[in-house]
């Protein structure tokens, strides 16, 4: 999959590029709006990651001219100011998704996967990993078609892990994504919920394991034989 990254801050674009390449994506970078305006029309890109504040032409006008020319390539916007108008303006201009800075690479990768799944027409509400299935609409979790009862928090936690298989998530990162940012980051709440979740799902050998990375956090163990796992 070939991705065009238009971002003026070289330090930001370099870690995005690195993270995406590790996932096996091919990445082209561009740090200027005017040059981006030319590159964005080149055929062959499967996705564009677009910063709004750019020297030369800004991200929103690039997006508008892209859509005016009936180009349907998916676009993820990166915004620094998470103001309401900017977000609505971006989605109205034809963005498929947006991400507010500062964001986690894992999240960007998860969004890219979600968009490509949408484009390929696969069932959007279902997330699979091994014989574990998450239905995002009915909020049901099944192992081999047996429904597992999870609380709201446990479900959100499992969804976060399953969307970023193989990646280490720190406790603070999990706390922010599942609980929001109102709790003291020093609590042990994440560990307690991981323990609860493990007890509920890990009685089957085909269910991916939630692995503790000592001193760092947790990750969903990705089965190396099965690359399609957790798509």
């Amino acid at each position, binding site marked *: 999959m070939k991705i065009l990254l238009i971002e003026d801050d070289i330090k930001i674009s370099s870690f995005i590029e690195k993270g995406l390449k590790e996932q096996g994506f091919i990445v082209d970078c561009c740090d200027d709006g005017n040059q981006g305006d030319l590159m964005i029309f080149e055929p062959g890109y499967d996705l564009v990651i677009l910063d709004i504040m750019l020297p030369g032409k800004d991200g929103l006008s690039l997006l508008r001219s892209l859509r005016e020319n009936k180009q349907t390539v998916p676009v993820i916007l990166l915004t620094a100011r998470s103001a309401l108008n900017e977000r609505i303006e971006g989605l109205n201009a034809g963005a498929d998704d947006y991400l507010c800075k500062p964001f986690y690479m894992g999240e960007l990768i998860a969004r890219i996967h979600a968009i490509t799944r949408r484009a390929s027409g696969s069932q959007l509400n279902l997330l699979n990993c091994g014989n574990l299935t998450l239905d995002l609409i009915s909020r049901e979790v099944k192992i081999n078609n047996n429904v597992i009862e999870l609380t709201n928090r446990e479900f959100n936690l499992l969804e976060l892990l399953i969307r970023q298989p193989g990646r280490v998530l*720190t406790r603070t990162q999990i706390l922010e994504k599942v609980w929001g940012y109102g709790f003291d980051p020093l609590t042990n709440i994440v560990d307690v919920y991981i323990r609860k979740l493990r007890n509920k799902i890990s009685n089957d050998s085909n269910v991916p394991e939630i692995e503790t990375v000592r001193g760092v956090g947790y990750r969903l163990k990705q089965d190396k034989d099965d690359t399609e796992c957790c798509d």
Partner: protein
Amino acid sequence: MLRLKISIVTVLIAGCLLIVFGGYLFIVIHLITMEIFNASIIQSLLEHKKSIIISIPVVLFFLALGGWFISCHMTKPIKSICQIAEKITVRGLNQRIPNIETDNELSRLVTVINSMLDRLEKSFYQTSRFTADAAHELQTPLTILQGVLEDAIQQAIQDQEETQLLVTLSEEVQRLKNIVKKLLILSQADVGQLDLRLEHVNFSELISFTIEDIQVIAPHLTIHQEIMPDIMVMADYDLLNLVIQNLSTNAIKYNLEKGMIIFRLTIENSYAMVSISNTGISISKEDQENIFHRFFRVDASHSKRVHGSGLGLSLAREIVIAHKGDLILSESSDEFTTFVLKLPCV
């Protein structure tokens, strides 16, 4: 305004009385000095005495009436200036008072007030713009820090000292991120442009989830709850969640070793009312006035060490006010400290 009108009327009447009295004196003095002794004039004056006496109050009444209307007319522009000025708050500092061209003094007053408003608006927006810009500028380095650290953590080998260091750094970045986020919300709230993503929120559920979390975070505390089920509010879920988490965290932090937290959720006059009470040391009278101020923290030296940025309560109140609700400290005695939050129901 009424006093002004009455004094104008009084001055008018007093003036008229003076003129009448002066005229009377003039005639008397004139008659005496001229020594003209014409009986017929005195006679006719005395004859009309009754009608003169009756006519005086009638004339005075009309004078008062006239005076009242004149003063009403005079104070009308002042009244309209007051009405407009009353409406100018932080949310509408761009409003100005329309100029009155007929009156020199008043139009000067209007110009002075307007230019004062200009200066006020300018400095106010400069301040809130500064916060917004500062928060915005901080986001780029934070994005880089977080991105690079996240990448390093992915490559890290567990159980090594460097890994622990990276995690510590990433926790601090997270803390900085939260402060920046909160400052940005506060600066948006200051100019009345808080970005609310309103949706139907099951308030009862949100509070029940938080109570579940508290039971995990603080198993040493006893929790009582009286939650009316399925109370719905229109709110920004993330921000409301932040408010409830913040109040709950405070209730844990400032509690006794084996204390208690009481949650109540009811409906009163189409408002959802939440009260969160905790045992613990009462907040002193002077501190009670300050707890909603930014970066203010109750001196915790006499209790245990308490973490936090001191932005929580001021932020919580701004968020609740943006939702057309209110957040108050309703009681702080030696027994309980209680915060009450009210939000309009759907």
